């Protein structure tokens, strides 16, 4: 199993959700986050004064998928979240050792 953690533009959440749904990946965790990547934010100007906007609002989507589905899921996320501009985000992939369903205590492969 792999955990895929994507940091994406807030307005791309629906597109990414739809793309994952097409792969029958329904379970996910979505979190409002703030941060910056290489771009390190930028300067905003309001009424002649400059404000440094270092932490940008982003969305984080976490999904756990079987190894066999991971590549397709990553591809779907990248395609759906891409605009081609700076600030499109990142996808991180991590191995998941074990997973348990709390309701039943059952261990999943």
């Amino acid at each position: 199993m792999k955990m895929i953690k994507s940091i994406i533009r807030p307005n791309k959440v629906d597109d990414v959700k739809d793309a994952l749904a097409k792969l029958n990946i329904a379970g996910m965790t979505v979190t409002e986050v703030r941060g910056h990547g290489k771009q390190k934010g930028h300067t905003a100007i309001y009424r002649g004064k400059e404000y440094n906007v270092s932490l940008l609002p982003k969305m984080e989507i976490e999904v756990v998928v079987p190894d066999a589905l991971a590549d397709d899921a990553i591809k779907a996320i990248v395609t759906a979240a891409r605009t081609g501009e700076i600030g499109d985000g990142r996808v991180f992939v991590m191995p998941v050792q074990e997973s348990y369903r709390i309701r039943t205590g059952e261990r999943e492969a």
Partner: protein
Amino acid sequence: MLDAATGGEYHGMSVTQPDPVGARLTGSLAAARAELTADVRRGAGGRGALERYSDRVDAMLRQLFADGKPPEHVVVLALGGYGRRHLCLHSDIDLLVLFGGSIGAVEERFLRSFLHPLWDIGVVVGHQVREIDDFRKLEADNPEFLLALLDARPVAGARALFDRFSALFHKPDTHAHILTSLLQLIDERHARFNATLYQLEPDVKESPGALRDLAATRTIALLTDPLLLRRGPADPARFDDAEDFLLRVRSTLHLETDRNLNVLSHELQEKTSEFLAYPGAEPRQRVERLMSDYFRHARTVSRSLEWARKTAPAPVGPNLGLSRDGIRFLDPIQAARDPSSWIGAFQAAIDSGTEVAEEAMSCIQQHVDRYRADDFFPDDASRAALLALLKPRAGLYARLSQMHDCGLLGRVFPEFQAISWRVVRDFYHKYTVDEHTLLTIRGLERLSTTADPYRQRLRNVLNELAEPELLVLSLLLHDVGKWRDDDHATESVRMARDVLDRLRLTDEARETVLFLIKHHLRMSLVAFRRDTEDPDIVKDFAAFIGTEQRLKMLCLLTLADVEAVSPETLTPWKEELLWRLYVDTYNHLTQRYGDERIGRNQAGVNDLLAQCPSDLEPQEITRFLEGLPQRYLQLFNHEAIYRHVRLARGIQPDEVHLSLDRQDSSVWTLAVVTLDKPFLFSNICGVLSSFGMDILRGHALTNPNGLVLDVFQFTDDERFLALNDDAQDRLLHVLENVVAGRDDVTVRLRGRERGALAVKTGARFPPVVRADKEASSQYTILDIVATNGLGLLYRISRVISQHGCDVDLVLIATEGEKAIDVFHITKGGSKLTDGEQQGLTSDLLRTLEDTQ
């Protein structure tokens, strides 16, 4: 109006021969006095005896009245102490002779026959003569008389006339005035006694804690809350005991001195203690017991008075009093009949930082269903008061909730009633629709005073709004359409139209409110679901929103709306997204609008042409519009645009065409059309400043053909326009001379350099000057924020022109003491070079720092 001062003329004509009337009067009075004297000698000259004596005097006056062949419409009223039936042996008999019509010969004859016999038998009569119509206007400068009138009691004559008098006299405003005067009279009187009741030789009428204080305490209760004394520090029975004691003492003083003397001197203390049968072998012991009783009673009175003064509702508006439990109606019966006064109770509660008292709430709740929406704001003043109530500030949510609880909000806005307790099930909302709506207003109220440093930027936006009450009105109505299950924004707009019709809002305010309601979901959609880093998204949103004011209002409405969904819905993350969209759109509206010019086939122009008035040609309009920023079409309504087209007609170099309108009592709008030339903008601003006009808002626009349209809104603090009939001609004349170079504005302003051009005192802000050559494709943008002051625009634009720059577009805004101006400038048709930009900004900063 006749009063005691003119009474002398009747006296001069008095009958001097003894007559049967006089003899009978003398007999009646002597008998009454003998009876009272006997009571006093027994130490029983208290309340009961004085009431009996007053009744006998009443009977005597009634007889005299009947003998005097009174006209039909006259009534004799007992005033003051006599009105309270506390007439002492030598008290003045205070009377008001009130006529139902004007006083002529018949009435004067009656007055003589009524008053002269009283004087002849030696009674001291304090009389006033009035016509009923005199009471249509308050005798504000005669507080003692007004106080005495509170005790008015009909003794003889037309009872119906007394009722008419009561209806005219007992009004909330009159009561409020009397209360204020009474409190002042008490203070003055106490000051004469060094404000202490512990006098060794007290005046039992005037001293602190004596009879006048006792009457004053009752009057305060009467004027504010008749049940006040029941809750006071003294048992009402003890208060009555004090009165009886003080009256008994006073009676003995009158008997002993044989005149109207009320000072309980050392000598009279001995006599009085004997009359009142104090035990003790020595006179000193009897006196000590008397005086100890006196101080005990005086203290009771004094404490009750102080308590009443502290506790009584303070008048805070017509028929409104501020008491410990909040705002009350001073006269609930009157309040029940006058629903237009109810909004005032809630306004007063907000102003006083309190609530509307439960009693007033019950009164409203009991009567509210009798009235229709219009009854609550029947005239312009009450409509303005309703809008003023909606200004966001501490207490607004709580008072609106109270209005909702007692049924008033749903009656004032029946549309709001439609969502009362309305449940809409979705995944987000946690409250009923009405409560969600009120919570949006609470959010705004909290924002207006928040100390959270992170929220100051949005708090500033709120506090900068010119008409924040329109935002609250929009919030109040934004979800009323949710009474139905389909597209609620459209239904809300339909319902809001009725409200706005009833409130008779100006067209501009009306459009703003309807826009906000119709599009209340738009900004959250764009901020949270669109890529706001895409310049086209921001550009479209800016085009949709049109003006900075609307942007500010929609941003705050969105914030409040999201926040009121549930405590978790508005996260700092969402607030940040909203703020970024706000800033990007604001910058677009103020810095990039110059790039978007009106071209052929421009949307919105067709409407203008279709409704073109008969004196204008469509080509004339298109020629005028072409090349102006597209925003022009959003900034001005059709009427204003047609006016501008007319002003531009046939304009020649050095000519100035202008129109001047008064917008409201203090703000004027000046539209100027001319052809561009160097220093034009600073010259126009300079001329306005030379007339003492303070520019608040405005737009300077140019089209590529050099046509200039400047529209200024300004205050005329020196009232040049209001006071001079030919002001417009004179202003035009000076403008033409200055624009044509025949007159030098610097000379005109020289006399004002030190005086009127000085910056207003008050808050100062360090000036901000920022030049940006990236924001617009054609212009260098200058953002200037500085302390507002007369002549500020002149000083700024003059420096710009001195640097050889053209002022192409200007946005002028003022928020409180802060001026926010955005200049679009070029030099030789291009943006400034880095060096030019640097030189200009440092010069501007220097100018602003020197003069601020």
